[in-house]
């Protein structure tokens, strides 16, 4: 019997929507990384979720060995993922930028498989989690109950996304990267070091997913197999929001987070992912460039 046939108190809907918004913001940060990389380098990172699991395991190891809270480790882990992304782009992916898309796909899929299996060898298949002192905390505002970990994670995700927007908007390097994205030939003509800017961009995208992974360990349990799941989720969000659109990625994250939450409440929780895919299909049918994407003339 589906619950929608019963009278559900309004605060339950409110709680679920708030939970969906908070989770969606972290999803948005994760997808932002994918969108940034595609928007500039024009390479689709099929190892995106798997790179996020690296960040998650780094947070887990630091918490387990040294008791360091993932929120404290956010900047160091983000820096490590930035370096990883930079090196990957400069050393491995750059030669593939001008090659056919299927070779890029195979390369990144190969990297994804290596990451998953490497993590399996190192950490095993069992689910592991970070249990902070506030893992069971929640805040009550009247009849609204807000999960403390989700709130912290979402607030940090908003700050990280704002920092990225500011970087692209107000710094010379950010402007140069946007120039590369807008006109690759023009950027070369005016003497920009495009390869370095591509590596920087891939590093920034990886840093986004690193930050998202560090925040997600507060919310979910980790296994090496979560990587492909989140790669797919990132794709759904980015395509829904608009490939290459940074605000679109955040909007897509929010939309998917809230949709999954409400679908789980109104219909059945085990079918909630179906509704995320339904949104994707609708967007592809009626607005193929995504909600905030630019139409290709």
């Amino acid at each position, binding site marked *: *019997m589906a619950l929608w046939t*019963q009278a559900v108190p309004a605060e*339950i809907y409110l709680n679920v929507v708030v*939970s969906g918004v908070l989770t969606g913001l972290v999803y948005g940060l994760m997808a932002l990384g994918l969108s940034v990389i595609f928007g500039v380098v024009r390479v689709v990172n099929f190892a995106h979720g798997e790179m996020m699991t690296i960040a998650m395991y780094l947070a887990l190891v630091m918490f387990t060995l040294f008791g360091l809270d993932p929120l404290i480790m956010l900047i160091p882990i983000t820096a490590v993922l930035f370096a990883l992304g930079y090196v990957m782009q400069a050393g491995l992916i750059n030669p593939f930028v001008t090659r056919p898309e299927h070779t890029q796909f195979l390369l990144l899929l190969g990297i994804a498989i290596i990451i998953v299996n490497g993590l399996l060898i190192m950490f095993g298949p069992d689910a592991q989690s970070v*249990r902070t002192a506030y893992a069971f905390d929640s805040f009550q505002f009247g009849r609204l109950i807000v999960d403390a970990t989700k709130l912290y994670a979402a607030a940090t995700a908003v700050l990280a996304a704002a920092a990225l927007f500011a970087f692209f908007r107000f710094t010379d390097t950010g402007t140069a990267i946007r120039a590369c994205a807008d006109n690759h030939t023009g950027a070369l003509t005016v003497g920009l070091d495009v390869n370095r800017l591509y590596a920087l961009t891939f590093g920034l995208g990886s840093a986004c997913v690193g930050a998202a992974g560090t925040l997600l360990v507060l919310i979910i*349990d980790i296994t090496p197999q979560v990587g492909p799941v989140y790669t797919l989720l990132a794709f759904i969000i980015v395509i829904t929001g608009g490939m290459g659109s940074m605000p679109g990625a955040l909007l897509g994250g929010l939309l998917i987070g809230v949709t*999954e939450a409400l679908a789980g*409440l109104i219909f059945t*929780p085990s079918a*909630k992912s179906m509704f995320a895919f339904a949104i994707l299909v609708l967007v592809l049918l009626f607005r193929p460039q995504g909600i905030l994407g630019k139409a290709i003339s």
Partner: protein
Amino acid sequence: MTDKLSARSARMSRRAVAGGLGAAALVAGVSPFNIVHAQGGALKVGVLLPRSGAQAGIGQDCHRGVEIAAGILKDLGLPSLQIMSADTETNVDVARARAEKLISEGAQLLVGAFDSGQTTAIAQVAEQKGVPLVINIAAAPQITEQGYKFVFRNFPTAPMILADAFANQKELFAATGVAPKSVIYLHVNDTFGMAMKGGIGAVLPKFNMPYKMLDTIAYDPTARDLSIEISKAKASGAEALMVTSRLNDAILLTRELVKQRWSPMAILSMGPGWYEDQYLKTLGKLSDGPMSFVPWYDPNKKMSKQLEAALAKMHPGINLNTNHVYTFEALLVAADAYKRAGSTDPKALAEAIRKTNITDNVSPGPGIQFNEKGQNDKLKNSAIQNRGGKLVTVAPKEAANAKPELPMTAYDKRG
């Protein structure tokens, strides 16, 4: 020169192999079981468990039951067993292949294999080869409904587990004078969870329970966030939570119960997860309270205490559980039958197993006996409750070592 020699050697080898195969086929035709009789020697027991793959943790836990068996069987004056371990890799096809391999390597009796699907495959091999199989854990009723002559099960079937679960619940409600008026049922949507849902739906109306089931909520056992599921359950207004879970989702559900500030009157678990050591260790005080209705052991029996002591010595910090108990009892059945049969002949062993009457055992009920189908239908299941990081048996009364605590203490009142 070398090439010629190699070629000749290869030809010789092929001829030798062909001849060998022919001889083997002839011998196999004359002596279908091809098992060496070794009276006075150890009985070769092939133990099949899922020690890698998705069920690796449980398979390895079952193996602890094998490890502690040797000393206790020796103390009982039973003949020794030569254990031949095989990993089913949590895969039905591998389970079948490993059973065949064990028999070809001389296993005279098989024990296994925790999972109903894998055990069904092994049972087919055992029956075909005429080698006795003593099932340690597998609840699908069909396994002992096939008319097999070499398959025996000292573990309750799913209908037995469910019937005892509701009988034990009624006993607990009567003992405490507290009973929920409504429950909501959360269950994993895998094969096990869906089978339990179907079974509960079929059995529940027959028991005239004091509660009404308001709703059922299925969820993916690999889900990483169960907040919506708990929101939905809370919204139903149910007084108690009935669950069929695995370990990780049991932890996630508890975490969400605490975060969403919902303390049901009772958590009634119809499966694993809520009583496992990892659940107790991970959640500490928050793990107290849930009741699990499971095949368990009678803590008042003498042999249970022996088993607890042996496990504590070999694996300190691990609570005795279903996996250890029923794997141990399968080996107990094997050793007892071997002693009475006085032979490794599979037919003699099967006949001896059929006449088993072990009253000094571990599982609840009058002991180990098998009916004409090879099923121990006298087994009883227990209700156990998590209390202070330990597990106590609260029903049935004759196999209990503690009084039930109902309603369970609210999560926000645990200090």
